[in-house]
Every structure is written in structure tokens, then in C-alpha cells.
């Protein structure tokens, strides 16, 4: 008996070591990702400094001009437009799910949201290109535009906003509901003045995560936005996002051009991390735990 228990103790020790090594491997993965992005981006950073990405007159890789600013503005415009549309629709979806729909409908609606979240981005791109773009083109040629990108991105992030809002709204304590009801408030007032303010932190941090997703999205944006490098001046302008630029040019980029694409990737990652950091700060400062939303 004693022998058996020492053997099993030894198995436990080995298991613990192996699993610990795996954990270390995961932590190392982040170091590896950052290291390789930096390593590949280094030549262009070293030869001209970071500022050249913002100062150069436009993006002309053949002439060694790597101005990313037009594409940064395009990316920001897309993500901002998408979240402005997706936030009200997503929160309304969450309210519908929790307070308006009968249980059976709510179940189906949740299934629909999950289905929407599971549609591959390339399929959204295909749909946007063949259905949405022609409709926009009848108002204003060429159709592939900032507007098309915003609309497709909106659809893609509605599930994220809705599901994080559901988590935040259902974490509101029962007492608040009961108190509001006891005051004789209508359902609209209960929701707008009591429940949403109580769930504000969770909703906002969910919206930030959704914005980060929109910024990082590549394929759908690549397919519907038109990919002309220019600072957007109207909704109907064809524009190129930072992500789309990487996907378009990686295939043939060499030396400094390739390095600046890696720098773009690094910049994108930093922005997305910044948003995620703010989101987690908001949740933490409110002392509420947001369910895993992505």
C-alpha cells in the first residue's frame, strides 16, 4: 500500500512538472510573437524611426514612402462607425432577450446570435461584396466603400455587444429590479434609469472589446472596402484598412516594405491591447466580473 502511494505521488510530481512546463511554453508564446514582430519590423524602424510612418507623404512602397496615416484613419473610421451602429442594436438585442421576449423566443434568439457570431468573416465578405455593395453602388458608385465596411463590421460585432450586454445586465442585483418596480416605474424607465446605469461598466467594456475586434478584422474589410489608400472624406469613399493592407501586400513585399508591414501589425496589436486594457480596468474598478465574451 505504501509502495503504491509513493508511486502515485511520483506520477503526481511528474505530471505537475510536465504541466508546469506547458504553462511556461504558453507564456513564452507571447514573448515569441512580440520578438518576431519586432525582429521583422526592426530594419525599417532603425533606419528611419517610428515617426516616418506618420510623416511620410502617403503609402508608396516602391519609393520607400511608408506613410500609414491614411490607413490608420480608415481603420479608425470603420471601427468607430461599426460600434456606433452596433452598440444600440446590440444593447437592444440584449434587452429583448432578457426583458421582452418570452422564454422560448429568447432561447431561439440567443441561438441566432450565436449563429451570427459563428459565420466566418470571409462569408460576410462574400455576402457584402455580392449583395450589399451593388445596393450601395446604386446610390453612389463604386459601392465598395467605407459605408460597406461599416455595415458588414456592424453585423459581425452585434453578437459580441449583445452577449456581453446580456452578461452585464443579468448581473444587476434583483433588489434593483424589485425596488424600481415598487416605485411604479414603467418598464422603459426601469430599464433606462435603473438597470442600464447599473450595468454600464460591463456594457462599455463589451463595446470596447467589440471595437477591438472590428479594428483587427481583415477579410470582410478587405473584400468590401475598395482598398484605395486614402484618408476617408465621405462614407462612399473606397478606403484601405491597416489590416487589409497587410493581407494585400505581404505576398510580394521585400526588405523595408515587408518590415513596414510587420510594423503595421505591431501598431495594430498595440491599439487592440490598449482597448482591452481599458476594458478590463473599467470592469475591475466596478468590481464586477464580465463573463468571457470573445
Amino acid at each position: 500500500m505504501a509502495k503504491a502511494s509513493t508511486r502515485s505521488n511520483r506520477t503526481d510530481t511528474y505530471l505537475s512538472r510536465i504541466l508546469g512546463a506547458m504553462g511556461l511554453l504558453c507564456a513564452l508564446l507571447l514573448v515569441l510573437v512580440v520578438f518576431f514582430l519586432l525582429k521583422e519590423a526592426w530594419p525599417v524602424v532603425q533606419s528611419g524611426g517610428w515617426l516616418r510612418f506618420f510623416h511620410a507623404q502617403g503609402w508608396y512602397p516602391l519609393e520607400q514612402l511608408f506613410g500609414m496615416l491614411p490607413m490608420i484613419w480608415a481603420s479608425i473610421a470603420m471601427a468607430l462607425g461599426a460600434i456606433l451602429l452596433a452598440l444600440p442594436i446590440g444593447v437592444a438585442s440584449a434587452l429583448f432577450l432578457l426583458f421582452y421576449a418570452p422564454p422560448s423566443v429568447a432561447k431561439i434568439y440567443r441561438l441566432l446570435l450565436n449563429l451570427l457570431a459563428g459565420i466566418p468573416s470571409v462569408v460576410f465578405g462574400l455576402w457584402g461584396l455580392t449583395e450589399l455593395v451593388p445596393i450601395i453602388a446604386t446610390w453612389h458608385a463604386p459601392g465598395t466603400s467605407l459605408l460597406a465596411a461599416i455595415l458588414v463590421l456592424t453585423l459581425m460585432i452585434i453578437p459580441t455587444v449583445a452577449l456581453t450586454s446580456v452578461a452585464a445586465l443579468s448581473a444587476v442585483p434583483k433588489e434593483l429590479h424589485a425596488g424600481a418596480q415598487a416605485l411604479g416605474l414603467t418598464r422603459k424607465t426601469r430599464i433606462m434609469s435603473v438597470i442600464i446605469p447599473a450595468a454600464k461598466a460591463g456594457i462599455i467594456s463589451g463595446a470596447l472589446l467589440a471595437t477591438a475586434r472590428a479594428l483587427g478584422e481583415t477579410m470582410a474589410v478587405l473584400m468590401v472596402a475598395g482598398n484605395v489608400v486614402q484618408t476617408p472624406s465621405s462614407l462612399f469613399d473606397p478606403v484601405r484598412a491597416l489590416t487589409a493592407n497587410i493581407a494585400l501586400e505581404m505576398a510580394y513585399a521585400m526588405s523595408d516594405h515587408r518590415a513596414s508591414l510587420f510594423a503595421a501589425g505591431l501598431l495594430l496589436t498595440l491599439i487592440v491591447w490598449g482597448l482591452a486594457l481599458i476594458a478590463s480596468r473599467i470592469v475591475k474598478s466596478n468590481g464586477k466580473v464580465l463573463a468571457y465574451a470573445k
Partner: protein
Amino acid sequence: MPSRSASNIRLADQCFSVLIMACAAFVTITLIWVLGDIVIKGASHITWSFITSEPSDAGRSGGIGTILVSTLLILCVALGAAIPIGLGVAVWLSEFTVQHSRFSNTVGTTLDVLAGIPSIVYGLFGNAFFSLYLGLGFSILSGGLTLACMILPIFIRTCESGLSAVNNDWRKGAQALGMSRSAAIWHVLLPAAAPAIIAGLILGIGRATAETAALIFTSGYVDRMPGSLLDSGRALAVHIYDLSMNVTGGDNAAYASAFVLITLIILLNTTAQSLIDRWFSQRIYAS
């Protein structure tokens, strides 16, 4: 408030309800539009020969047989790498480390940071590390490993949350029976956390199968039948992208491929669910 009559308040309440319903209806109708579009335009082109034959004329005619094989191989590599490491790290985080110790917190934060990296950046990393540095080139192996890196954080986090949610009585019970920790993990805790593991697996499979951006520069564009894992292979999602953007007259084939892709994702999800259900329910009762 004497100026606002009760009927006004009731009207505002009703308008608000209508607005909420309208938003829900909008989301539902758009989803039906997207899915209906894919099904109507895609299903009519699906034949047995489309699914089995090789693409020809840049994908305009022929089928997607070789592309399906590449897609499944990439998926197998990704899951083969991500599942053992993911389960291992999840078990380690929830069972072997002191909760909120500095090291486990560091690993946890690292995972959250990794989960936030956009997929195109994983593509850049995979290209620089697996394809060039490790010399795997444009291959199914480097594509699959890149996807493994991408799905690992979310898989670990869901498994870990499932394991931590297992009631402590189960651990104490196993200990009281004289089970070693390894045995308790294998026979008690993992089966008890099965729903979360399935959820993590489904999320991972969904992401990996749908992914395009991370694969363009890692597993490549070649649409021939892959001879080994070191050959380049075109994933289904990359095929759809290529057909709709770079091949004029490829829309029909693109829609048919999109239909197959969505069907594949649903099929893989249900299979994963039933497989793990059966596997875990057998062990928790029989052993």
C-alpha cells in the same frame, strides 16, 4: 408631474418596446438574409462531384475535393497541437497552482493578451516563425501550428473556468478514496468539466475552420492535393476569398464553397459535442 399625463407615459413605454422589438427583428432578418443568400446561391451548385473533384480553371469549374482535404489536415494539425497543450495548461492553472499566485497570474494575463491579438498578426508571426525561421515553408504544418497558437488562449480559458467551477467536494471525495491527484483529474475532474471543455473545443474549431487571414501567408494558395504535411494546401476559407476577389466569374463556386464551409462548421460542432459527451459519460460511470 402634472404636465405629463399617464397616457403620455404609457405611450413612451410602448414606443420603447416597439423600438426594442424592431432591433431584434432587424438582427433576425439580416441573419436570414445572409444565410438565405448563401443557401439559395450555394446549394444549387452542390453536387457530389463538386465535393470530390479537383478545382480546375482557377476554381471556376471543377470542385473542392483537394481543398477539403487540406482544410481538414490543417484543422487536425491545429487541434492535435492545441488540445493536449490546452488541456494540460488548464489543468495546471486550476489544479496545481495556488490561485492568484504570481506565476499563474502571469500566465493568465499572458493568455488574455494573446487572445486579443488580431488574426492577421498571427499570420505575420506564423510566416516569420514557422515558415521562415523553423524552415517549414508554406505548408499545412505551419498553417495548422499558427492556428493552434491562435485558438490556444480561448481554449485554455474556457477549460480552466470549467475546471475551477467543479465543486470542491469532488476533489475531497477523490482524496478520501485515496486517489492520486493524477487519477482524480483524469477520472473525476475532467469528466465533470466536460461541458466547458466541449464549449472551448467548439469555439476553437469554429475559429480555426473560419480563419482566412492567418493562413494566407502560412499554408498558402496551392490547390493541388497535398502529398504530405509539408506541402502547401489551400484552406476552404482562403478558396472563397480567392474566388470572390481574384477570379472573375468565380462567384457561383464561391457561394457553393461558402455553403460547404458553413455546413462543415455546424457538422464539426455537433460531432465534437456528441463525441465528448459519449467519451466522458462512459468514463465517469464505468470507472
